[in-house]
């Protein structure tokens, strides 16, 4: 198992506990404000209703005997006449003479407007509460000392056994990888591209050796299932993306990159994410990032929440974990498939990323540490390669199939 150039980042450094707590407090303050406004509005509504009652009851008598207030501290007995005539405030200093029934109508309409205001306030409060809970979880996570481990994606042969062991070995770190810093994506991307080009050339040379890549029927089968899932989420986009990205060399880092980009834009539509995910797929390599991707693909496709980046971050975080669980099963399959068809990695990836992206964004499932994929994939020789080429999903990636193969070979040496 190779873990190249890993970066261990304690969660606390990314989201300092203090700041997370402060953020929670700020959001709670805002919530309190909105609550007060809401109470205000509710008072208005109550007053309105009582007036409606009064206005409807007055005309029942021709006169009413009442105590009329006189100044600040006196009353005198009097009579309320013209019990059906009301001068109603319409707003902005305008009054109108109306009967009791018409007045009641006016008041009812006013009440409806107030109700709609209350509803919008309620929605506001709900959003704020969601934000607060996200901050809360982040704070607690940071306090627990979760660590985000980021490793470069190294092209390695995928071995099923390795996957499994990898899954068990890695705690939560793989999932955290997803929360990479978006900033690094661009740098990584260029770096990866250069690397990919190199590897491609090598692959072409070395490809001929690895013809016999064992296909893992189970993995392939599983992969197909996974692919189906993904394909559901990614329809045409994955294909188009695959073909586009297929040209790109497979690189785990790229996957990471795409993962990040996917996560970076949670709000963006799934399609966009799918595209990026697919691009990532193309760079499928047996790598942690890849695993993450795969994990994600494994998870069910969920509608992207319209959450802000924060929520997406948290969701991605959680999704990563969730994905890990799912990936555990999917990864081996995915990897094998990737291996089998050099040209296919794109497909695989494409299927995955779309679902991944959506899932990462949406899924907040629990993180299954046992299934975390730490990304250290042991190279398998031709078996992996063949499996990969064979199992890759049907996208149209037709670029150099040899690429993934050669990469694996390189790893093996």
């Amino acid at each position, binding site marked *: 198992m190779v873990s190249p150039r890993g970066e261990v980042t304690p969660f606390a450094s990314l989201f300092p506990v203090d700041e997370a707590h402060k953020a929670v407090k700020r959001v709670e303050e805002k919530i309190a404000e909105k609550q007060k406004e809401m109470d205000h509005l509710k008072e208005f509504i109550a007053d309105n209703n009582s007036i409606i009652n009064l206005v409807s009851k007055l005309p029942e008598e021709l006169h009413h005997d009442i105590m009329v207030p006189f100044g600040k501290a006196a009353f005198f007995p009097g009579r309320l006449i013209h019990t059906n005539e009301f*001068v109603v405030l*319409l*707003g*902005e*200093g*305008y*009054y*109108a*003479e*109306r009967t009791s029934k018409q007045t009641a109508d*006016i008041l009812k*309409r*006013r009440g409806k*407007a107030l109700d709609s205001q209350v509803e919008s306030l309620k929605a506001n409060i709900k959003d704020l509460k969601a934000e607060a809970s996200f901050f809360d979880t982040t704070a607690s996570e940071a306090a627990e000392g979760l660590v985000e481990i980021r490793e470069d994606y190294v092209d390695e042969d995928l071995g099923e056994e390795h996957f499994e062991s990898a899954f068990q070995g890695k705690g939560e770190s793989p999932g955290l990888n997803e929360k990479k810093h978006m900033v690094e994506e661009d740098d990584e991307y260029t770096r990866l591209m250069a690397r990919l080009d190199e590897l491609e050339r090598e692959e072409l040379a070395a490809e001929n050796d690895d013809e016999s890549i064992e296909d893992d029927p189970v993995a392939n089968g599983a992969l197909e299932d996974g692919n189906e899932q993904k394909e559901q989420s990614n329809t045409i986009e994955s294909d188009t993306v695959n073909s586009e990205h297929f040209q790109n060399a497979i690189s785990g880092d790229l996957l990471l990159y795409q993962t990040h980009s996917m996560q970076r834009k949670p709000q963006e539509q799934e399609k966009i994410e799918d595209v990026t995910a697919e691009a990532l797929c193309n760079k499928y390599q047996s790598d942690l990032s890849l695993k993450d991707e795969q994990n994600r693909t494994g998870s069910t496709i969920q509608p992207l929440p319209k959450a802000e980046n924060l929520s997406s971050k948290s969701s991605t975080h959680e999704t990563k974990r969730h994905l890990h669980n799912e990936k555990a099963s999917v990864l081996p399959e995915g990897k094998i498939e990737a291996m089998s068809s050099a040209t296919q990695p794109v497909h695989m990836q494409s299927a995955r990323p779309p679902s991944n992206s959506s899932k990462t964004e949406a899924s907040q499932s629990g993180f299954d540490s046992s299934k975390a994929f730490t990304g250290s994939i042991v190279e398998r020789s031709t078996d992996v390669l063949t499996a990969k080429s064979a199992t890759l999903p049907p996208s149209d990636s037709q670029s150099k199939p040899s690429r993934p193969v050669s990469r694996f070979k390189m790893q093996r040496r």
Partner: protein
Amino acid sequence: MASPAAVRELQRDLENKANDLSKIQKDIAKNHQVRKKYTIQLGENELVLKELELLKEEANVYKLIGPVLVKQDLAEANANVRKRIEYISAELKRLDAAVQDLEEKQNSKREAVLKVQQRMQALQAGKAKA
């Protein structure tokens, strides 16, 4: 030495820029407040217009001017309310443009402040080395 003077000058610069920034921020906050007020008024006026339209022709409309309720013509009241709505909308648009402007200025000021801070840091790092 030139360094302390330079540092002091940079600090003064930083203070100035920070002041400007805070001023701009206050302006933006005021703008927001006025905007809110206008928005509420606009809503109320629209409600009034709706009610006025529901009134039958002979209904009496009064306007509160100070402590006096003055009888008004329904048509006149309608026209007045409409004019007021237009006026408020125009004000809101003007405020929107102003707030955009202020925000741009705020951003540029922030960048300037950052630059000055960076220069200060570089200077201090240089001083520390020397």
